[in-house]
């Protein structure tokens, strides 16, 4: 298999299989949660549960002021990574083209300079996340094998993408293939690690907010 054939395989069969595992895995994990069900709350309500649930989905993007000074490192590192990551994922011109090909509609891309900056932001954010995780005794204790794997497979596409874009490794088709391969690894690992929080946090926030809203508690 030469570089060109490798690239074709990575873009073809490998991509379709990893995407299938991702979609199947995420669906399975969401069903595992939703199908357990919940009991109805019979206590007389003081406020709207639905409104509380929806509100909490948004309010939890902001940190709680009371603990802010104590969690500043984690918070900043987390935000820098997430913002950088989503800018690159959603607004790099070739990524937009890929989404357009898949969904039939696209959106304006950001200039490459911005993408470059966002990539570095995301990588530095991830490194800061790792340093926190190694230094903070609570995080270190809570972190399991799957969490280290999740960190690593998130970093890979950022690094390989950066290397491909800047032609740091030649030939380019090989580097591009490695970048796509790293994304496929991420897709495969995703449903079986805490990366699932990308989707399930909305459920978690809704459930918590709904209970609080029912009680008339503003959280």
């Amino acid at each position, binding site marked *: 298999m030469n570089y060109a054939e490798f690239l074709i395989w990575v873009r073809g069969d490998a991509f379709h299989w990893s995407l299938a595992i991702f979609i199947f895995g995420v669906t399975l994990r969401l069903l595992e949660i939703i199908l357990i069900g919940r009991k109805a709350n019979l206590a007389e309500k003081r406020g709207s549960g639905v409104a509380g649930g929806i509100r909490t989905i948004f309010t939890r993007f902001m940190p709680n002021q009371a603990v802010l000074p104590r969690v500043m490192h984690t918070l900043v590192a987390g935000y820098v990574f997430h913002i950088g990551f989503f800018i690159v994922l959603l607004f790099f011109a070739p990524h937009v083209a890929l989404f357009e090909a898949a969904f039939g509609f696209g959106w304006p891309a950001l200039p490459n300079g911005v993408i470059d900056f966002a990539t570095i932001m995301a990588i530095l954010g991830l490194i800061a996340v790792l340093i926190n995780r190694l230094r903070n005794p609570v*995080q270190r*204790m809570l972190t399991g094998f799957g969490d280290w794997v999740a960190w690593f497979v998130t970093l890979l596409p950022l690094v390989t993408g950066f290397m491909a874009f800047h032609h740091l490794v030649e030939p380019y088709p090989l580097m591009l293939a490695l970048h796509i391969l790293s994304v496929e690894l991420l897709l495969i690992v995703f449903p079986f690690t805490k990366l699932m929080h990308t989707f399930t946090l909305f459920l978690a926030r809704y459930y918590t907010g709904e209970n609080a809203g029912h009680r008339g508690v503003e959280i």
Partner: protein
Amino acid sequence: MSSASFERGYHAFKEQIDSSVAAYFQSCVSCGMCAEACLFYTETNNPEYTPIYKLEPLRKVWEQEYTLWGWLKSSIGLSRKLNDDDLKQWQHYIYDSCTLCGRCSMVCPVGNDIVSMIRKAREGMVAAGHAPEGQIGASKRAVTIGSPMGVKLPALQAQVRHIEKDTGLTIPFDTEGADYMVLLSSMEIMNFPEYLEAIARIMKQAGKTWTLSSQAFEATNSGIQIGSTDIARELVSRVVNAAESLKVKTVISPECGHAYTAIRWEGPNLMGRSFDFKVKHIVEVLDELRAQGLLKTEGFEEQRLTFHDPCQLVRRGGVVQQPRNLMNMISEDFVEMPDAGMMNWCCGGGGGAAAIEEAEELRTQAFMCKKNQLDEVKADALVTACANCRIVMEEGLEAYDMDIPILGLTELLAEHLVEEN
């Protein structure tokens, strides 16, 4: 509790897991922010007191029983199964170092209601026979005698006679159709009878009818604290039966945090039906009377006062503004502690923790957060609306040689009542 076993405990954990628990465990990114909200972590720096870590047994059961991936992992021996020794070790985390205060649930960035899971995990711990002796004793007394402190009706009747003699007021028992049925905590009957006297005087001024029930006067619910649905349901049902047979309009939960959660929020779910009467905390009732102009006070406290929010009232009950309205009626110099209101620090002994003798040292250590709050405002007196907080804080203040009296909000208001003689 006699036939407790690991298998029963495991089954109880399994039963407690619903969609919310599954979503919470799946979403946790091990960021550790919940630790920074927990007084047992902030005052000890012991990572084992991280709230989500206290839920390891429940998490294990979820992973192995409700996820294909977890089932596969344990089938091929990649993850260890939960065992009885784990639960034995976790008793310290789930009971001694958690007051169900719910600060952790306020800060979780993925939105996990962590404290709700501790409450659920306790069901498994009770069924497995790993609940603290102190709480088991309190629960047994609550079921057999009718009060966790062993207070019986004659003791209440004796207090009532004292109060009637001192004030010339009548304290009614078992009056049908009253506006309010007043519940008490044993703590109030034994240590703070001023509360009952205050109620009698306030109700008289407001022109409301009220009653105690000889069948159900105890509001605290040890079943909620230890984590036993059966006990909790039995205790709640006594109140519900009394209130419905007396056909009262509203049941008033006393100055107690967990009693309110037990009757107001968990009660209908324990009974499997809604109630014919309303349930309100005394502070809610007093604020309603204030708003209707039925609570008239005169004079102001000159000393500097601050208010300690009971956890169950704010974070789990949504009663935040009412006590402040009431404080402002009678205080000229009312100051707020840092983090007051929704994020107030726990007294350190809620959720039944105060009944755990072997955890007293840890409680005293955790009380540092309250000491810090108090040092900040330099109040002359501390007001609260929970008899349990009050007792725990009195012990804490004593341990740190702090000379700050603690007052109940209801009795403080009663001292300023405009009364016609």
